[in-house]
Every structure is written in structure tokens, then in C-alpha cells.
């Protein structure tokens, strides 16, 4: 097989994969609605990508008795759509659906079920890591200590419910 052709084919695949990944994320940035979420953080170190802050959100834990929900139990790994609405300090979860409602202008964030026990639903939104310059993580963590988080996260959500962290917002 022509090696030059292989080189071009491999280069194209690599560029396509990289650009595709960027475009899929840029789409969220361009079309996403801005949502402000409250956090509870930790600060580990990822072997692959430097310092980052692990973020937990107030909406990561939902009480199914107090929130409108299609079901009273969700199995592990199930995809759900959480309806969020602006609250006093930040946006709050108001409903949990198993399907994305069509022609609804409200904001839904896609999540996967981490656990569901005693009507407490624990969720992952895929926005639990925020990468920061080396050494900065500790400072951010310090700012976030205590029960009342002093840092919130600005998240962009597209029409399919995919979320992306835009920035950390200090109070």
C-alpha cells in the first residue's frame, strides 16, 4: 500500500478526531444556556492532565420526595434529565425525567445515576472536574471551605442537555 497515502489518511483521521471533539464542545459554548450552580469541592491530582478540582454540586444529590420525579427509584447508570430553574443563590433542580421533553424551552441537564437509596438520588453530570494551573487548586479549595460555598460554577447547557463548565465564579 502507498505509504504516502497512509500518512495522509492517518493525518486526516487525527485532525478529524481532534476537530470533531473540539466542535462538539464548541457547539455547547455557542448554543448553550448559562446556568449557575453551587458546589462542594475536593482537590486531587489527575495522572493525565495536571491539577484539577473535583466538583460536587448541590443538584448532584436530589431528594425524590421533595422534587418532581417520574419514578421513585432509578437504577445505576441510567440516563436522566434534570430540570433546573433559577433559585435564590443559584439554579436548583426542580424535576427529574427519563426522557428529554420535546418543545420545552426550559433548561434540562443530562446526568447519569450514581446511586439511588432511600429516595435520595445521586447523579453525575460529566462536569465534575475543573482543570486549573498547577498549584492553584489548593487556593480554590480553600475558598470553597465551609458549609456555604464561596465559589459557584457557571455551566453552559445545550438543547440536548449536555453541560460544559464555562468558569468558576468567586463571590
Amino acid at each position, binding site marked *: *500500500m502507498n*505509504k*504516502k497515502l*497512509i*500518512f495522509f*489518511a*492517518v*493525518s486526516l*483521521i*487525527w*485532525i478529524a*478526531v*481532534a476537530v470533531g*471533539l*473540539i466542535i462538539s*464542545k464548541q457547539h455547547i459554548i455557542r448554543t448553550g444556556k448559562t446556568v449557575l450552580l453551587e458546589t462542594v469541592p475536593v482537590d486531587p491530582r*489527575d495522572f*493525565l*492532565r*495536571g*491539577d*484539577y478540582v*473535583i466538583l460536587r454540586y448541590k443538584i448532584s444529590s436530589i431528594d425524590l420526595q421533595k422534587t418532581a420525579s417520574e419514578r421513585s427509584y432509578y437504577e*445505576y*447508570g441510567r440516563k436522566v434529565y434534570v430540570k433546573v430553574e433559577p433559585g435564590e443563590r443559584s439554579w436548583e433542580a426542580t424535576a427529574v425525567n427519563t426522557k428529554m421533553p420535546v418543545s420545552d424551552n426550559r433548561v434540562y441537564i443530562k446526568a447519569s445515576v450514581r446511586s439511588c437509596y432511600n429516595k435520595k438520588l445521586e447523579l*453525575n453530570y*460529566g*462536569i*465534575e*472536574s*475543573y*482543570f*486549573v*494551573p*498547577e498549584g492553584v487548586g489548593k487556593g480554590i479549595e480553600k475558598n470553597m471551605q465551609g458549609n456555604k460555598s464561596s465559589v459557584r460554577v457557571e455551566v453552559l447547557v445545550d438543547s440536548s442537555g449536555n453541560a*460544559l*463548565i464555562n468558569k468558576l465564579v468567586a463571590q
Partner: protein
Amino acid sequence: MILSILLSLLTWGVIIFVIVKSVARAFKKPSSWLQREVPLWEEKNIISKEQGDAVLSLYKLKRVVAGKKMDMVKVLTLVGVIFVGLGVIFFVGSNWQRIPSLFRTAMLLAITIGTLYAGYIFSYEKDGFVNLGKSLLLLASLFWGGTIALIGQIYNIPTSENWYIILLWAFPIVPVALFFKNNYVHILASVLFIIWNFLYSGSNSIANYYYPLIIFLFMLPTAKNLILTRRINIIGLLLASFYCCFYKYEWLSLLISVGLLACYLAQKEERAYLYTACLSFIFWDITYFTVRQLQPNIYFLLPIGYMLYLTYKDTLEKNLVFCLAGLMIGINLALSSFSRMFNYPFDWLQFMVFQSFLGLSIYSVGIVSRRRGYLFPVIYKMFGYLVVFICVYLLAFKALLGEWTQTVNNIYLIGSLILTGIIALFLIDAVKCGDFKNKSRRIELTAILAAFAGNLVLLVSPHTLLLNTIVMNSVLVVFALCNIFLGVELKKHHIFTLGIVIFALFIITRYIDVTWKLKEKSLFFIAGGLVILFLGTFLEKQRKMIIERMKSG
């Protein structure tokens, strides 16, 4: 309980096997002076190749194929490339903020494609730089990983989705490995797929069926002539199958096992396929047990039976060890299922006695194989002996004998009684056929009868703690003496030395057993040290003296 014992034994078995195999391979040298010299004589035209073959066949030696030597330049380029690649990944990891993120990505992608181009140019367009070209292709593949990691970092892809990053790294480098025939990149992709498999299963808590499919359909067929790459993938599959035991992915381990077996049937010269298939079927059996504890896995008999058939058909003695281990594990898991079904509690003592009878049965198969001229009598005997010795050694501890739960597990009891009958029939048949007529065979029979009688005492009367302790310790001494006498009789000093080792082990453990409870630990260590010193010197002196006498005739 049984499962944890079996799993830990199996884990250690696999680890030790892999270490021993790797170390042995690393230090493998021609086993004789002739194997080294014959190729040299042929090279200098002192003898022809046919004459060389004739000389080697006279001494039943195989021709040693000289391993490819890695030249210094190749090593240095490779090390340099790995350093630069790692440097770039760490550079990305340090999250350099001064350059805009999209520009950083574009820059890294340009460097990656540039390196790929340089690799292509040096490999195929310029003469004399093949090694540099290969190394640059590897470097480009490492840079590609850096680029993907950088994009993941810019868009804050969570660490729980690292499997996604690894997959996007691994898949696009496969064409480089295949079409540029780059072994280094093939190895990199194989290792990345192994990491991806574990990250994917760990993050999503589901069985990763894509992994074996990718390996069986792409990686193994394309690594047909690349031993290292092939073995890395085989180990990856074995690890994936082993992982299934802990997460109850029974269908995945079955898929891997069947796939490995099919690979062996398609490429019989790679024996690792069959060895790992055998181990993988054992993992499947364990997984099946963890999933449905009340259902004995009768289907396991099919693959293990077929493995045994292949072991004999293709004369693979190492595989017999795996098959026997698999049979033992299979029988124990089945008995454990039956015990749970009928609500019999687990009893340590009965479990050990049953294992000992199983070992004796396997040894008996070795005796029959020897008499009838079947294959592998030594493997059966060695395996059986090892099992019996471990059981007898453990049962010689008073504390372990006292673990009897006061309740009888009829399943293990019936199992032991059936084995007792089988062993007795084997022995009667062997005695009738004159198997134990000469002195060395009579010594062997003494050891077998001692173990048989000892186990029988434990089976019939598990509550007589003192009697059982004396009986099992006596069996251990008989083992040591039989090895010593057999070694002298056959003039085989390794058997003799084994007897000495068993004897020394017996003395030391009994000393610890008896004196450990003493309050004065300093006295325990001083006296123990003196006993070991004295015993060691005395036994070594005796051993050397007898071995010298053996040699002199």
C-alpha cells in the same frame, strides 16, 4: 471463604507463573556448551549445517536461535523518543495558561502531524534512517495522546471519563501500527486498550464486551508475527477475564475464554493461547460461582475436558498443570454450591482433608500412567505430591486442627469417602500388578499409605485433637524420611535434598508452634536461632556427605 482462598491461591499462582516465565526468559541461555558452539563452527565452515544438526540430535539438544540484539543507536533513539513524548504530556499536564487554549491545541496538533510526517520520511523516503523513522512514528503517537489530553483538559472532560480519552488516543494510532508496520506503536496501542478496558469497566460499572472484540478482531490477527505484541494482548485478555471474577461478568469471561481457545486452534504454534484459555475458563467457573452460588457449573466440564484432550493431543505438559488446577477448583466450587444448597456449613478441616484426598487421587493417576506408559506420569505425581504435602503440612498445626466446627458437612464427607474408595482401588490394582516390587517403589508406597491413613484418621475422628496432631506430624516425618531414602536409593540428590528440606521445615515450624506461646520472646528467638544454626549445619554436613557417597558410587 473457599472462594477467597481459591482466588488468592490462583492470583499468586498466576503472578508467580508470569514472574518465573519472564525471569526465566530474560536469563535464558543455551543449556549446554554444545548449543553455543555448534552455530559458531557452522559459521566458520568447520562443519556443515547437516553435521551440526546431527551433533545436536545425538545429545538430544535443540538448536538455539540467536535472539536479535538491540543495537545501541536503536535503544538511545527509543529512550530519547519516550522522554520527549513524556515531556510533552507533562508539559500539557502542567496546564500552561499563557497561550490561548485553541492555539495551544493547534500547535500541538501541528507538531504531532509534523512528527508523523518526519517518521514517514525517515522510514520510507530516506535511506539508512529506518530506526529513527520508527521512533518518530512512536513519538507522533505519544504526541497524539498529548493532544487529546489537552483538548480534554481545555473542555474539562471529567476524570470519570478518562476511558474516553484513552480510547480516542488508542484507536487512531492503530492504522500507524498496522500500515506502517510499527511494532512499538502496536505495543503502545495494546497497552492503551488494556488501560481503557479497566477504566471503562471501573467508571461505568459494566462489562466491557468491546475490548475482547477489538483485540480478537483487530489486534491479535495483525500481531500474528509479533510475539511481544501478541503476548501483551493475550495478558490483557487474561487480566480482563480475571477482573470478571470480582465483578460477576460471567459472559465476558466466557467470551474471552472461547476466543482464546479459538485463537489457539487457529494458530497452534502459540501455546500461550491455550494456557491462557485454560486459566480464563477457570476464571469463568469462579465468576459463574459468584453469580449463582446455588448452581454448580456442570458446563465447566466441557471446556476443561476439551482442554485435557488438547493437552494430550498436542503433548503440552505445562497445560496439564492448569487443567489439574482447574479441575480441583471446579470440583471444590461444585461441592461448595451443593453445601449451600443443602445448608451445610463450611468446615476448614473437612475441606483440607478432601484436598489431600484429591491430591492422592491425582498421584494415583500418575502411578497408573507410569505403569501403562501413558503421557505425563511425572506431572501427575508432582502435582499430587505438592497438593498432599501442602495439606499435610497445614494439618500438622494443632491450631488449625482445632478449627473443626463440630458440625459435619456431609457433602465433603461423601466426597472424601468416594475418593478414599477410588484411591484404595488404584493402590490395590497397582500392588496386584506388581507396581511396588522394588525398593524405591516400596518407599513411595509407604509415603502414600502414611498420607492415606493420616487423612482417614482425620476424616473418621475429627474431634481427637491430640491424636490427630500426632498423626499428621508423623505423616510429615514419614514424608521427609521417604524422600531421603528414595533419594539415596535412586541416587537423585534433588529428591534427597527435598527430604532434608521437609525435615528442617518440620523441626522449625514445630519449634515455633510449641514455643511461640512462651511469654519470654527473647528466649524464643535466641534458642530458635541456635536450633536453626545447629540443625542447618548438621543437616547440610550430612547432606553433602551422602551426596558425595552417591556420586562416588
